[in-house]
Structures are given as structure tokens and as C-alpha cells.
């Protein structure tokens, strides 16, 4: 019987080794696989290259991985945020390397890796510092720059529900990089709120087919949902609303 489901989150990340390149899904906090990142920190590997849209916010998730000094390099589009103090400090101190990639090129380089594309010409970045030194070509009168795929040893992503075949559905803008990262890594590990029986997900609605997923880890329902229904009660970071703040609105 095929089963990609595991309830042992430490076992799920145990094959990741020192020096690995790891894609981490999420846009800001939405869709960031915080429980898998915590398990990775506990697993203890270091010298990692992280591919993600951002470089962590607050003190949890990617920020915690950085603060634990496990990351050598970050490949991302937007590290600078109001609460990216961990990355900001380490970057200024020269403790972490940064490869800045325009967001669409980042997404397409990940997609290309998963789709077997050797490289592609994109108009994004032409004439800017981020295309300097790269191969350019004029195609049908328009200038493009050559970009190469980004592969990863592992992808850590977050989805709403999965099944033991690895099929996944996401929730709202938490989808973001999950579906493309799942295709581009040697090993894709997805945390889900719940793992349902095969047949429990509508085949017409599956976003990531199980072929792209190696491991599904149920981590329990996110606090702003109850039995799959939105109940709220948190701020945008997922932290509980304080009673006084509720009253002031």
C-alpha cells in the first residue's frame, strides 16, 4: 500500500544533510511551513542554502532557522521587511550570503527545474544590475536575459489537506510557491492540517498531484480554522487577538 503519510515530523526531515539546498514555501507568513522548519532546526543540519521568497519575519520559521546559524546563503526576492530583523542583522554582519532574484524569475526558475527546462530567456531584469553579466539575446525585436533553473535537495511546503498518495490542496494565498517548489526538489515534504483518506479530496480540485510529493505530515488544524471553517480570532501573523484590541475596533 502506498503511503507517503508520516506522523513523525522529525523522521520526515531526517534525510536532509549538511550543505543541502532547501526550498521553503510561503509568502511572508502565509504558507510558511513553520512546523517543518522547527523540525529541521531540531534535526541540526547546517551550512544550508535556503530558497524562499522572503528571508524570515519575527523570530519564528525561517528567522529562527537563520538565528540558529544553520544557513549559509539565502536565495530570495524580498528579504527586507519591517520585521526581518534577524536577516538584516546577519546580512549586515556578513554572516549570511544573499542572492537576490526578481520574484517572477525566482518562480520561473523553480518551475523550470521541475518541468525539465534547461534554461529560459526572460524580459525581466533586462537593463538592470540583476541581469549584469548574464547572457542576453534579442528575440523578435525584444531583449531577453538567460536564466537557469533552481533545483533543491528538499522542498518544505505547507498545504491545507493531503492524502497518503501525496495529493495536496492549499488555502487562499497560502498556495503561493508550494505547487512549484514541490516539483523542483529531490524530496518534497508537505505539512498539512489533516491527511484524509484517498478519495477524500475532489480529483478536480487537487492542485499538487501526489507524484510531486514524497512525504505528507499532518500537523493539526491552523488556529483560525475549526473543522475546515474560518473562525478567525488571530492577527495577520496568526497570533491570538488580544481582548483589548478587539474592543478598540
Amino acid at each position, binding site marked *: 500500500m502506498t503511503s507517503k503519510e508520516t506522523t513523525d515530523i522529525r523522521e520526515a526531515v531526517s534525510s536532509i544533510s549538511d550543505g543541502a539546498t532547501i526550498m521553503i514555501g510561503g509568502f511572508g507568513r502565509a504558507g510558511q511551513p513553520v512546523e517543518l522548519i522547527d523540525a529541521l532546526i531540531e534535526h541540526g543540519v547546517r551550512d544550508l542554502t535556503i530558497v524562499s521568497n522572503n528571508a524570515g519575519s519575527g523570530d519564528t520559521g525561517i528567522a529562527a532557522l537563520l538565528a540558529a546559524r544553520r544557513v549559509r546563503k539565502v536565495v530570495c*526576492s524580498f528579504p527586507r521587511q519591517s520585521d526581518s530583523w534577524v536577516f538584516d542583522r546577519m546580512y549586515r554582519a556578513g554572516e549570511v550570503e544573499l542572492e537576490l532574484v526578481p520574484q517572477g524569475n525566482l518562480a520561473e526558475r523553480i518551475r523550470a527545474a521541475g518541468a525539465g527546462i534547461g534554461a529560459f530567456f526572460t524580459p525581466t531584469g533586462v537593463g538592470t544590475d540583476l541581469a549584469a553579466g548574464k547572457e542576453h539575446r534579442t528575440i523578435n525585436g525584444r531583449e531577453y536575459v538567460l536564466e537557469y533553473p533552481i533545483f533543491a535537495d528538499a522542498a518544505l511546503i505547507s498545504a491545507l489537506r493531503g492524502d497518503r498518495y501525496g495529493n495536496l490542496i492549499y488555502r487562499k*494565498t497560502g498556495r503561493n510557491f508550494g505547487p*512549484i517548489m514541490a516539483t523542483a526538489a529531490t524530496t518534497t515534504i508537505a505539512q498539512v492540517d489533516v491527511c484524509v483518506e484517498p478519495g477524500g479530496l475532489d480529483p478536480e480540485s487537487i492542485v499538487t498531484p501526489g507524484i510531486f510529493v514524497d512525504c505528507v505530515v499532518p500537523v493539526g488544524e491552523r488556529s483560525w480554522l475549526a473543522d475546515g471553517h474560518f473562525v478567525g480570532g488571530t492577527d495577520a501573523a496568526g497570533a491570538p487577538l488580544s481582548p483589548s484590541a478587539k474592543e478598540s475596533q
Partner: protein
Amino acid sequence: MKRLLSRSEIAARIAEDIPGGAVVNLGIGAPTLVANFIPPDREILLHTENGMLGMGPAPSREHIDPDLINAGKEPVTEGVGAAYFHHADSFAMMRGGHIDLCVLGAFQVSEHGDLANWSTGEPGAVPAVGGAMDLARGAKEVYVMTDLFTKSGEPKLVTSCSYPLTAVRCVKRIYTDHAIFEVTARGFRVRETFGGLTTSDLEVRTGLRFHD
């Protein structure tokens, strides 16, 4: 009118010019204000780079959903007829020329329509580009929303950008507190002024030449 436009008034003026049926991406920061001024009877579809078409306004506090945010990571709502998609599709919408209009902030715009809005190149600053280069290159039309001058009084319209570029020859129109400008093959043209300013007043203040 005897005064310059406020930030909200610039946003309202941009919203006035967006035709019904347009698919629009509003950049992070001030351009997000434009959404507040789109008339309810005009059907405009807002695109957000993190995977949604049909984005609605900010929620009330009890309806904040951490899975439902915009490009600036602020909570938003789902409009009627909204659709979600992954990041490669979202940027295919930009790069593939499917977005009618984007409104972006700027550090500088050159008279050729070059845009600089992602880095001031300051030493020690953490660089961040996000989706700006994809949007500036990919949207069918690029409008800039900005004050005409920096806080220290330097004009943001320039003959040639000194800051690192986001994209070359991409800006079509610049909405500022002083005036609305267009980028043409011959350089900047003044489309409309505010606060009773004349084109020659603007030339004196910016040190630029505006053609008719």
C-alpha cells in the same frame, strides 16, 4: 484649486482614470490606496502577485485571515469571482502581458520612462526587489504614483536615473502631488497641473524641460 494633492487625492485621481474591466496590479505602499477610490459600480479586477485575482478591501479585525494577504503582507478579503493560483501563474500573468495596468511607487523616473524604485544603492542597506522588475516589464501600462520631490527637495523626475534601474522605458504616466506627467518619445509632457501651477513653474522647480 490652490493647493497640491494629498496622497489620497493622488490615489483618487488615478482611480478616476482606470477604465471598467481593467485588470490592475497595485504596488506595495502608497499605490494600494488607489483601491479605496475605485467606484463600486466600475468592475475592476485587482491582481496581487502572491496569487489572487479579484482581491477585495481590508477586512474588519475579526475577519483577518492569515492565509489571505496582499503583496505587502497586509490582510485583505476575497472579492466576488476571485481566483487563487500559484506563483509561476501569477508572474505569467505579468510577463505574458495579461495585466492591463500596474501602479508603482518610484525613487526616480527618467524622461525615457526608465524606472528606479527598488534600491537607492546605499551601503549597508538590505536590497529587496520583489515583483517590481516583473511588473514594470510585464504590465501593458505602467503608471507611477509619487510625490514630485523627495523629502530633501530633489525632483524624482530626471533626465537620467542615478539609482539602480527596475526596468528601462516602461513608465507611461506619472501621477504626482504637483501634476500629472506623460512620458512620450520626446520626453516628459505635462498633462494636468494642480494648485494653480503652470508648466513653466514646474520647469523652474524641477530644472527639466517639458514639451507641449
